[in-house]
């Protein structure tokens, strides 16, 4: 159907979303841009998203990865809720990761709730891209 050989894999699709009310999306935009340069197809949904909006967008976009950027401190409420809604929609194999300001004490609980990995300040784009390639349901070539 396209001019590509059948064996060539499509780019990995990532949804970058900002749940909650904080208004700072510089980090999310830098990450989106960096992942673009790493060959990912990035869907950026903008600020102030509810977990419902994020899960619905992820479902329609059939993304491989959801990256949640959160700085507001409401992560313990919003991140597990997003995981639940995504899984409820049948997206069992979608990787969900988070980044932003998240205290070490919360990381274990978030991982238990289904957040695969948490990237704190200072993480490089390259580290995130590598992690995504290794853990996405659709391995890249």
């Amino acid at each position, binding site marked *: *159907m396209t001019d590509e050989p059948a064996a060539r894999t499509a780019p990995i699709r990532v949804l970058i979303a900002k749940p909650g009310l904080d208004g700072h999306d510089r980090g999310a935009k830098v990450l989106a841009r960096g992942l673009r340069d790493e060959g990912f197809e990035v869907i950026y949904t903008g600020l102030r998203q509810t977990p419902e909006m994020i899960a619905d967008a992820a479902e329609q976009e059939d993304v491989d990865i959801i990256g949640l950027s959160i700085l507001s401190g409401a992560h313990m409420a919003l991140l597990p809720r997003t995981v639940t809604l995504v899984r409820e929609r049948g997206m069992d194999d979608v990787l969900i990761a988070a980044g932003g300001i998240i205290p070490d004490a919360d990381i274990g609980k978030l991982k238990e709730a289904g957040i695969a990995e948490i990237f704190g300040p200072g993480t490089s784009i390259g580290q995130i891209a590598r992690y995504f390639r290794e853990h996405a349901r659709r391995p890249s070539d």
Partner: protein
Amino acid sequence: MTDEDLPEELASGERRPLARLLTRIEAGDRTLREALPALFAAGHGAHLVGITGPPGSGKSTLVNALIAGWRAAGKRVGVLAVDPSSPYTGGAIMGDRIRMMEHAADRDVFMRSMASRGELGGLAGTTWLAAAALDAAGYDPIVIETVGAGQSEVEVARLAETTVVVEVPEMGDEVQAIKAGLLEVADVIVVNKGDRPGADRAARQLRAMLSTAGGRVERKPPPVMVTTATTGQGVEKLLQAIDSHQADARSPDQARARARNQLRRAVSDAAWRSAEASPEWETIVQSVADRRLDPITAAEQLLEDRA
């Protein structure tokens, strides 16, 4: 779950089967081949509406406003929004959703971002098949928003029944309005950001220049309207213009023109598949690489072999 059930799964109104199908379509999954006739047969003949125009002219915001209007009229709306892929890395940032998130949770709106993946006409190579999938799932109208387009990305007009070209008040002088290309394929022209100075003047200039046409292409000049997508100003009239254009778009001539375009895509895809499956393929690739054979003769040989 087999592909035989695809039309039924799409008709169920569930989003997940449609979303997965679109991923396979985008990836060029050839195992879908068997399911395609049923997919087309399941189509309802939705109104395909193309939205194009320069980057930042407000296409996505306008689509957001149009969705609200169509939803108020009880229609289920499908949206395919195309953004450019990087020619260097193949990556893309797709941001059209930012303007449309208020409809994200509406079960009767399905919106999908597509990266152009190397196509240069303003769409992706698989956009027409993706539109067929949305049609089979019962969405009507289906909006196809192009990448930010300059003057010659007219591919959308071949696919869409109604093409809306979105400009801004600062679009330029009268000469811009009579150049060939994007404005020429418009069925409806919108001057968006109508709250900025000069919007009405730009619309008047467009109307004046387009009505002086009368060249080889005989058609009545497209309506030119002013909208402010952020406030909804003018959107009601635009909805009427789009809806009323549908009848014109369904003329036998127009239908044949669209069929020709679909066939152009399908024939080139089929020829490509056939050529690539030829036992001679690798040998001929090498001959072209070594400059022992020109690519045009090579193509003819490959297709003759398979005939």
